[in-house]
């Protein structure tokens, strides 16, 4: 092939290319110039609207399938920024109709600049009368949409409120973190409790309706519908009647109650008071009301069972006794003399009201909760061993319960005190720690797990609120049974002395007042001095004493003696759990 024919062929190639581009140009002229008006009109009419079809959030039910949290249909009023013709006029008007702050609407309107075709929710759960008023003014309010969206409904209002949690609009921080999982701005997300922890199961998957609408915003045809997928059902270990009994027994006092299966760690009742009705948050809470809640001195937002630590008082003697028995420093029959006070190098430690128990053995010292005996043995056990056994019982560490923002509490020892307070450990600190005073801070959930370990023979269970996740159609997707966190190394002898002591507490000791006919209860009282008023009252217990099926603990803030204020709560929950309340009130109706 010679050069000339090659160049000739290149000329042909280029001619073909030019021809192809000419074809494109002619076609473009035809579409854009000749038919331009026609396509412009089509473009004008071409209004696409993408509506999110909110997925119904998964139900939350108790162990027997009784619904605790459900959804109800409600109206949401939203604004489509691109279709707002005269915002100066329209925004104050819609704010007035909805009874919301116009500044808030302006802010949302301005924030939508990037995506003017996405509806911005103005108010959820709008009452029917207001919806009617909005519909009436429709002609003056272009761009205002009324959508039907499910609203979360907590059937028993403030019952188990901390455990269930509540919903709120997703925060910017959460959005950045979760965007990849498909979370969208303006979406509701679980903010606390199991609503937060299990949000990704409960939320379901939003659907989408892509439709063309005419200039009036009326649907002209549906292009694509992706149906919403309902969220999964969360089955809790909670037993509704027991939960109601726990809350009723706690009453108006500040405190917490936890009931748990000692074998599995499944939580069967869980109360923290004061609590708020989570329904208040379902449609969004005004910011003024929110800041009032944050300032409330009773701190209703704090989950007292896992987010607050308290000195346990004598409940801690379970730890000290375990250490002393396991180290072979005492036996059940070791004799002590309790004169009502303890002399630590000239400094006198007084027991409650200087009561003297005289001569008594170690088992009875547990039963009557003699501080003097425990002060005495704490000197030979030593702070390191007390701390070691406390940690083995899971104190000073999060229990791993499926609730947010759990705290670890404090188990002090000399190294801890040096690190935190830059102070040496004194012998008095050992005495205080041995009886659950001083620096000791324990959450009610930790106390429940500790007593569960005594009840089940030493297994440190991982407490869990949820027991199962089911698909909307009822199939089990996942069973929730977290493995134990560890094992408390207690010999059979140690366990039997401990259990005998805890049984004696109820049969003839400090908590003799809470005996239940027909049910052998074992447990330990605690009365922890507080700097803020009356002592914290504690009772941790289990039943039946010989074959424990349930542990129940109660803690009441600034109330008084454990036996007087916490014991009866545990008693009432146990009565309900074992069906021993002949005159039990009817299991409260869900308030509509």
């Amino acid at each position, binding site marked *: 092939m010679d050069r000339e024919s090659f160049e000739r062929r290149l000329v042909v190639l280029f001619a073909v290319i030019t021809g192809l581009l000419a074809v494109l140009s002619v076609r473009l002229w035809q579409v854009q110039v000749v038919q331009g008006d026609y*396509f412009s009109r089509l473009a004008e009419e071409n209004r696409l609207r993408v509506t999110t079809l909110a997925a119904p959030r998964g139900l939350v039910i108790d162990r027997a399938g009784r619904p605790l949290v459900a959804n109800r249909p409600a109206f949401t009023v939203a604004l489509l920024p691109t279709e707002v013709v005269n915002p100066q006029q329209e925004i104050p008007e819609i704010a007035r109709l909805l009874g919301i702050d116009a500044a808030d609407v302006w802010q949302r309107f301005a924030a939508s600049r990037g995506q003017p075709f996405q509806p911005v929710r103005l108010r959820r759960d709008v009452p029917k009368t207001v919806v009617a008023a909005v519909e009436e003014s429709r002609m003056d309010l272009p761009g205002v949409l009324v959508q039907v969206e499910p609203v979360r409904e907590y059937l028993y209002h403030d019952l188990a409120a901390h455990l269930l949690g509540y919903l709120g609009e997703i925060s910017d921080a959460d959005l950045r973190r979760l965007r990849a999982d498909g979370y969208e701005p303006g979406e509701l997300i679980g903010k606390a409790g199991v609503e937060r922890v299990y949000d990704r199961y409960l939320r379901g998957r939003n659907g989408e309706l892509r439709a063309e609408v005419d200039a009036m915003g009326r649907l002209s045809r549906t292009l694509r519908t992706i149906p919403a997928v309902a969220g999964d059902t969360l089955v809790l270990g909670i037993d509704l009647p027991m939960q109601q009994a726990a809350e009723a027994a706690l009453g108006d006092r500040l405190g917490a109650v936890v009931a748990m299966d000692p074998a599995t760690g499944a939580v069967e009742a869980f109360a923290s008071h004061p609590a708020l009705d989570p329904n208040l948050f379902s449609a969004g809470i005004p910011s003024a009301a929110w800041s009032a809640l944050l300032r409330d001195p009773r701190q209703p937002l704090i989950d007292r069972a896992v987010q607050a630590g308290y000195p346990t008082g004598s409940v801690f003697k379970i730890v000290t006794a375990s250490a002393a028995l396991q180290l072979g420093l005492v036996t059940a029959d070791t004799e002590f003399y309790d004169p009502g006070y303890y002399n630590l190098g000239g400094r006198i430690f007084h027991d409650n009201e200087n009561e003297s128990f005289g001569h008594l053995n170690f088992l009875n010292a547990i039963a009557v909760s003699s501080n003097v005996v425990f002060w005495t043995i704490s000197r030979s056990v030593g702070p390191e061993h007390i701390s070691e056994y406390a940690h083995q019982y899971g104190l000073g560490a999060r229990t791993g319960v499926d609730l947010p923002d759990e705290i670890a509490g404090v188990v002090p020892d000399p190294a801890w005190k040096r690190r935190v307070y830059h102070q040496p450990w004194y012998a008095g600190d050992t005495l205080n720690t041995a009886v659950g005073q001083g620096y000791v801070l324990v959450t009610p959930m930790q106390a429940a797990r500790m007593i569960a370990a005594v009840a089940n023979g030493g297994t440190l269970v991982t407490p869990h609120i949820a027991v199962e996740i089911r698909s909307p159609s009822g199939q089990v997707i996942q069973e929730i049974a977290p493995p134990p966190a560890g094992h408390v190394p207690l010999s059979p002898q140690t366990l039997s002395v401990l259990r005998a002591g805890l049984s004696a507490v109820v049969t003839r000791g400090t908590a003799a007042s809470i005996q239940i006919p027909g049910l052998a209860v074992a447990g330990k009282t605690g009365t922890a001095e507080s700097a803020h008023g009356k002592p914290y009252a504690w009772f941790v217990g289990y039943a039946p004493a010989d074959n424990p099926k349930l542990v129940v603990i109660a803690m009441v803030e600034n109330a008084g003696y454990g036996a007087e204020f916490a014991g009866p709560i545990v008693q009432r929950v146990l009565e309900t759990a074992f069906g021993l309340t002949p005159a039990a009130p009817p299991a409260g109706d869900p308030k509509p």
Partner: protein
Amino acid sequence: MSAVSTATVAAPASVSTHGARTRRLARNLDPILIIATAALVAFGLLMVYSTTRSTPHPFLYTRSQLLHIVIGVSVGIVLIAVDYRTLASASRWLYVANLGILAAVLVVGRSSLGAQRWIPLGPLGQFQPSEIAKLVIVITLAKHMADRPGPYRSVRDLLPFLGHVALPMFLIFRQPDLGTALVYGAIFAGMLYAGGARRRDLAGLAAGACLLFPVLWHLLKEYQRRRLMVFLDPSLDPLGSGYGIIQSKIAVGSGMTWGKGLFAGTQNVLQFVPEHHTDFIFSVVGEELGFAGALLLLGLFLVWLWRGVRTAAVARDRFGALAAAGIVSMVAFHVFVNVGMTVGIMPITGIPLPFISYGGSALMTMLWATALLLNIGMRHQKIRF
């Protein structure tokens, strides 16, 4: 010239130093091709910004595109500095490596819109080997044809080249990427024609391809068949596959003569047009810049292709001449099919608009193709002093 058997290789003056020679060569760079390329790339960057600026991160796509321009140009400069004949000698390895990577895509590739075209590269993002594979096929086929200079007297003489292209083409077809496989066909036809194949032999191959069509139809995925059928009659499925064509035509047509103005396209913002920053970016050009803007863009492509053809004409050897012809065929086919698709005269096959569509692999491939053209043109036989 050398496309010719009587190659007269003008040895450069041996007295010149390396630096002086480099400067002399650099003076031979085609300024019109460089300007046309720069204009196309700038045009593309502007359109990518226009199509993606109303997303939550307005500069995300533009920044990524810019990054790929920087990488593409940097590597391109290296490509220009190395004599293109080095590529010819590495041809065998390039071909084998190319097949290996295309086979790897089938195994590890990431799926996008139902097709496996991507190889994940960890933090570097992902890489679409079928883009760079086009350029590799141009280079290796040019070398193959230079080694068998003909004359090609029958279809049988063309069969080795057919085999050369068919193997990678089949791998890409299986990804499945019908559009890119067709690009190979265009490269093959363009290079064989330029290389001296007889018209009747090419016509024979085309007829053979038509006979194969029923078999290929069977191998196509359902969505590809639907796209082709919908092309023949968009109203078959106005809400599904036909939707893109209809919406694209509305976008282009509503731009009218002068367009709605940059960033002012409503079909663009409304996201009526699917894939509007990648394959359908021309519909936004048509909508926002009108017939005038569309013609301007086609004009830039025409200038670029003209300089490519000219490079082929002045190349010092048959390899360079055929490589240039292959690159020109490749880009011309892309432009025609892509723009044709947005105005409803070509089926939707998912091939990008060179230099304009968002997509790093395609953009860098086009920049390197330009670098190769500049390289071939710069080392043509008559070195100006």
